């Protein structure tokens, strides 16, 4: 049995705790939050053995094998360093740190101590994304030419947790509210296009009354295996998270919130016939996706976080078997290099 502990009993912590509760080979040894009420209620709800308001006391007392860090971003670095120092593997919410230099220190520490460090790129592990990964690996997709990632999100003041919202507003994190989501966009682009070579980005504020430093973001990325366009809008509605991967043999579009997947492939036979067949196949895929999505929503409490559950399940399996974790330190470094390049452009405005 691996002993897990969690620091920060806010919004995303509920998904981590629910998943830990469901994993048969993990015991939840402790929950820590600066609020006694939140720590105790989370411990009671998810069956943790103990609750704490001081993370160092928790690390000393229960000596966890794995520590989940789900606090607001500025605290991630120190908490992760303390957890590594205590000999634990670390699963940290994105962004792992708010400065690239701190991330290097963290990665070095994890490598030196031979501990696993995971930054939460949960969308990489959503079912449609994993399907595209397998199409790419099998060669069905052909060579990857271009990747598009577009996140549309209504983010009003009340949506992020209080401490988190303040961070997103006051620019203590590069990119503010948009910067908070960049690791998701960057990890998807990196997964298919590889490490970046050059970046151009455009940050803007469409609404003067918006409390966020920026509310629109676009970027063009030249990468090792192809190019990518990243976009994030806090105005375009309805909420959606599109991933489109263009290969030399196939184009695949996924909507990560409703987990739909549509494949557009080179067909056999005359082009008009192949096009009609393609469209009919896509209509069938969409119908199946809609029905499957409704059924899943009704019967599965994980919602859009199925990727997080999958990531955590794989991480714990890797820890128990001693195999490679689902996210490598190198991958974290490269994704954060891209995030740093994207946010470096922010300063020019």
């Amino acid at each position, binding site marked *: 049995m691996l002993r897990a502990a969690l620091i920060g009993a806010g919004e995303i912590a509920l998904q981590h705790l629910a998943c830990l509760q469901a994993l048969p080979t993990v015991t939840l040894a402790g929950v820590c939050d600066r609020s*006694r*009420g939140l720590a105790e209620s989370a411990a009671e709800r998810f069956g943790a053995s103990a609750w704490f308001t001081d993370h160092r006391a928790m690390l000393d007392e229960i000596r966890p094998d794995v520590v989940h860090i789900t606090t607001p971003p500025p605290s991630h670095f120190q908490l992760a360093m303390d957890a590594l120092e205590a000999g634990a593997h670390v699963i940290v919410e994105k962004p792992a740190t708010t400065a690239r230099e701190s991330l290097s220190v963290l990665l070095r520490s994890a490598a030196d101590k031979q501990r696993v460090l995971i930054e939460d790129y949960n969308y990489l592990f959503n079912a449609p994304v994993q399907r595209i990964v397998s199409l790419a690996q099998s060669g069905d997709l052909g060579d990857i030419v271009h990747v598009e990632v577009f996140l549309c999100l209504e983010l009003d003041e009340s949506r992020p947790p209080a401490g988190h919202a303040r961070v997103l507003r006051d620019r203590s994190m590069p990119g503010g509210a948009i910067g908070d989501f960049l690791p998701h966009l960057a990890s998807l682009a990196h997964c298919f296009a590889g490490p970046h070579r050059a970046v151009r980005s455009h940050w803007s504020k469409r609404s003067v009354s918006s409390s966020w430093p920026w509310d629109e973001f676009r970027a063009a990325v030249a990468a090792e295996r192809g190019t990518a366009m990243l976009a994030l809008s806090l105005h375009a509605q309805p909420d959606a998270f599109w991933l489109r991967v263009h290969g030399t043999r196939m184009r695949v579009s996924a909507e990560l919130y409703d987990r739909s997947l549509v494949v557009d492939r080179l067909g056999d036979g005359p082009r008009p016939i192949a096009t009609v067949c393609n469209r009919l196949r896509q209509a069938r895929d969409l119908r199946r996706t809609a029905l499957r999505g409704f059924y899943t929503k009704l019967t599965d409490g994980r919602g859009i976080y199925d990727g997080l559950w999958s990531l955590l399940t794989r991480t714990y399996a890797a820890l128990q078997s001693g195999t490679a974790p689902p996210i490598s330190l190198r991958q974290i470094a490269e994704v954060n290099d891209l995030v740093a390049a994207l946010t470096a452009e922010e300063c020019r405005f």
Partner: protein
Amino acid sequence: MSILNVLVTGAAGFLGQHVARALTRRGHQVRALIRSGTEVQVVGQAPWTEIYRADLRTDSVGPAFDGVDGLVHVAARVTGSYSAQMADTVLGSERLLEAMAGSATRTLVLASSLSVYDWTAVDGTLTEESPLERDLYRRDVYAIAKTWQERVVRRLSREHSFDLTVLRCGFVWGPGREYLAALGQRLGRWHLVFGPATRLPLTYVENCADCFAEVVDNRRAAGETFNVVDGHDATAWRYLGEYLRRTGSSVRRVPVPYGVALAGARLADWINERCWRGRARLPGLLIPRRFQSRFKPVRVSAHKLRDVLEWRPPFDLAQSLQRTYEALEPHTALPNRRVEVHNV
């Protein structure tokens, strides 16, 4: 009766505004603590003399307690996700009382809810001695957050020797909040009424606010817990009928026996357990424990309020309905004043 300086949280909210008015009518000075960014009346017949704008979850509200004799804590979040309600209602209360511990204020009235009780364990009459919810995480988010708020406030009150009074309010209704979750479920042109003869645990908002003011004034309230309901004979069928008639709605009421509806919820729950190991996200109506907390035909006793405080609601049901639907002026004018505003 001495004039007190009272800090009221959530003073811009539905109940909080009326509590501030009730205290002002009794001659007390009200300092309002409201959420950052909330716009409120700062001139004219305002029910407060000072306003502090703050986010209870993150701001330090110590200065709001300067010179305050008592706190009436009404602020809570009634909608939103689990974490949003827990942060606003539980973390907010924790930080508020920690700030109070550093002040000279020692008297506290908490607005709690009847939702903290275990309605499945009550047959007949629910009193202040009835058991609290034992299967909390099968309940809705509001019940979980209010239960934890009470736990946190009681613990901090013990630790800092606060004189705590807890008022567990029934369904608070009035102008602007005429429709209640206890009325059933609307389906297009039809409205299902589960248990039409059930007497609703209602408290008209001006009655409820007057009860808060009475507790501030009455020393016998310290250390006690009271259920706050008006005790009027308002069944779900009658209340909904008044609501539909007075709002000119053409929706038709459909009576559904409570037992039949509960059997439906139990069947859905059984199917969920059998087919999906309880993971299906069913609406609250199909979760038996939640269904019972909303619709169970239980009489809620307000005897303790009458016996200990000798308090009775100032408005009967007919007057409450008239005041709600005819938007009558408050029965006592408030003084004209300019309000001092502090942004924390």
